[in-house]
């Protein structure tokens, strides 16, 4: 299997899908001439031309809404939000139109569309540029939400998203674009709603997704050195949410830790923890623990920013508490 960066996995998949289906087109700020803030779409303007690679003004509400209209007429727009923070000005089009049109039209028309870009904190981008929004979008039926953690899943989930018929919230991470990993060649496709058990253990189940997977795996390795073996489950998609795989694991380990980048209050882990108890109440030997970002707007100062975020040590500490 070829090794690719997360960025190239995304870009390669965009190219394959655009070559395969002329209805696929790209919209976003600086995705063309500039090549994309994170260079995910670099070179695609030259390859496909202005009609299929559209540089937009700073108008998230407008161009996300245009994407919805394009999708209703049969195109398959893939929209880049420069970062998910800026999706908040376009949230109404995502929540009120993209997610619901199929339903209130009685199934007459759907919105096959992908909105992709980096989610969560970067490095010292401060409060307005450092938000993880999975629970916000995950709440709304009609949307699908993916958060690939590896180049392989970036490729497989993006392909599934583009070929699907629903609006997809595709959550990438600035810190992952450069990460390398093996990527199955060919028509590799990862169906939504299938979590992956990426590490086997018997002592505890660690559940996470996206960027946090890498911290969680590092923690699991560290714990293994002291003889604490963990199942690590990468949810991969948050809607649909594959709680069956999580529950299977917890029934074997009797302990669980859920790791999220978001602040805990009404964050993504709360749903997962609740889902675990709904399925495994009698199996649990210890309370399920959340490892979350601090419940604060992200500060600029690096020392505070680091305090605000989950890290390997915090995960290790949480697991130790649960297995104690």
């Amino acid at each position: 299997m070829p090794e690719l960066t997360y960025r190239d996995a995304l870009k390669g998949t965009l190219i394959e899908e655009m070559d395969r289906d002329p209805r696929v087109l790209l919209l976003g700020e600086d995705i063309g001439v500039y090549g994309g803030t994170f260079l995910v779409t670099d070179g695609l303007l030259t390859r496909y031309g202005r009609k299929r690679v559209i540089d937009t003004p700073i108008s998230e509400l407008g161009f996300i809404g245009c994407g919805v209209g394009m999708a209703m007429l049969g195109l398959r727009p893939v929209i880049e939000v420069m970062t998910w923070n800026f999706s908040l000005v376009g949230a109404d089009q995502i929540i009120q139109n993209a997610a619901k049109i199929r339903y209130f039209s009685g199934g007459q028309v759907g919105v096959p569309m992908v909105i992709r870009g980096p989610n969560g904190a970067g490095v010292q981008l401060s409060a307005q540029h450092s938000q993880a929004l999975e629970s916000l979008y995950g709440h709304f039926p009609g949307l699908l939400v993916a958060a690939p953690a590896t180049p392989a899943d970036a490729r497989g989930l993006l392909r599934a998203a583009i070929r699907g018929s629903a609006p997809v919230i595709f959550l990438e991470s600035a810190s992952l674009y450069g990460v390398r990993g093996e990527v199955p060649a060919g028509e590799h496709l990862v169906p939504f709603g299938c979590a992956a058990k990426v590490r086997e253990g018997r002592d505890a189940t660690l559940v996470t997704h996206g960027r946090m997977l890498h911290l969680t795996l590092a923690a699991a390795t560290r714990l293994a050195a002291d003889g604490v073996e963990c199942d690590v489950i990468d949810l991969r998609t948050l809607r649909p949410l594959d709680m069956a795989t999580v529950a299977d694991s917890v029934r074997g380990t009797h302990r669980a830790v859920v790791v999220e980048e978001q602040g805990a209050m009404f964050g993504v882990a709360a749903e997962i923890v609740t889902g675990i108890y709904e399925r495994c109440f009698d199996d649990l030997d210890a309370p399920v623990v959340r490892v979350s970002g601090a419940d604060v707007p992200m500060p600029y100062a690096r020392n505070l920013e680091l305090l605000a975020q989950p890290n390997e040590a915090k995960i290790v500490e949480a697991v130790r508490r649960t297995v104690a």
Partner: protein
Amino acid sequence: MVKKVEHQRVDTGTLLEWYRSMVFVRRFEEQAERSFRRGKIGGYLHLYSGQEAVAVGALAALRDDDVLFASYRDHAYVLLRGTDPGVVMAELYGKATGVCKGKGGSMHLFDVPRGFYGGYGVVGGHVPLAVGAAYALRYEDGGDRLCVCFLGDGALNTGAFHEAANLAGLWGHEGLCPVVFVIENNQYGMGTSVPRSSAVTVLASRFGAYDIPNEQCDGMDPAVVYEVVRRGVDEVRRTGRPWAVEALTYRYAAHGAADLLQPYREKSEIEEWRERDPIIRVERRLREAGALDDAKVDEIGAEVDRTVEEAVTFADASPEPAPDELFTDIYADGEVRP
């Protein structure tokens, strides 16, 4: 379905059909209000009465393969595109036979096969959709279909309108945005008059900021609306560039059927506008042309009433949606494994 004009002349025969269409829309809305009062229709109900000339004149200038987007005040458009009045009324009644299976209701009518891509409830929220749809119509070369976006005076104050209009202007420069904006300036957004909500009161002029040609027209005469929109439509179809018209019209009823008080306007103002009622004006013109007399007026009224009654009977007799419909149409079948 609203009568199209042959060789671009509004002859008496056409005008007579438009008269019939306007009477039909008016009576349908009056019936909808009665059904609302009887509790047969729930939620919000926004009537079109007073604005008939806009929809009739504009839709007469369109082709059957053009597409339309509108706000929640959307009954007239589907009726004039030829959707069966029964399935429209059934949707208002929340029945399984409704055009949206009873899931959308009055504010969210859709008839995609007839090019009607929906009524939307968030003010201004449908404007970006229309602009994107227009782009899609030119995405494959050689297309000459266009998209019409009906919007209210209040919608022009939303960011969605601004961002979409700028995108339309930009894409229009490349001939990739055949969208016709029809602003139905009925003088109010709920209880707020145009001068209290818009810093400029000639709303058409706002399109200048997006390099979109625009004009104003009398929205109480279907022939006038038709002539203006036809010219605009020809231009948009040819150039792939957006164009906008502000039709000056008026809403007779309250904003929604549930609103009882209207402290924001005088009865006298409503009366003044009623004197310019499009139905009465066209009726007068047709009588002068000898194409209409009392007998014919009664005949048309009776015909239309029968159609509306049949719609009500159909809606009444129709079943509620089956309980499992609650969970269908959220995703395409098979998209998400349960």
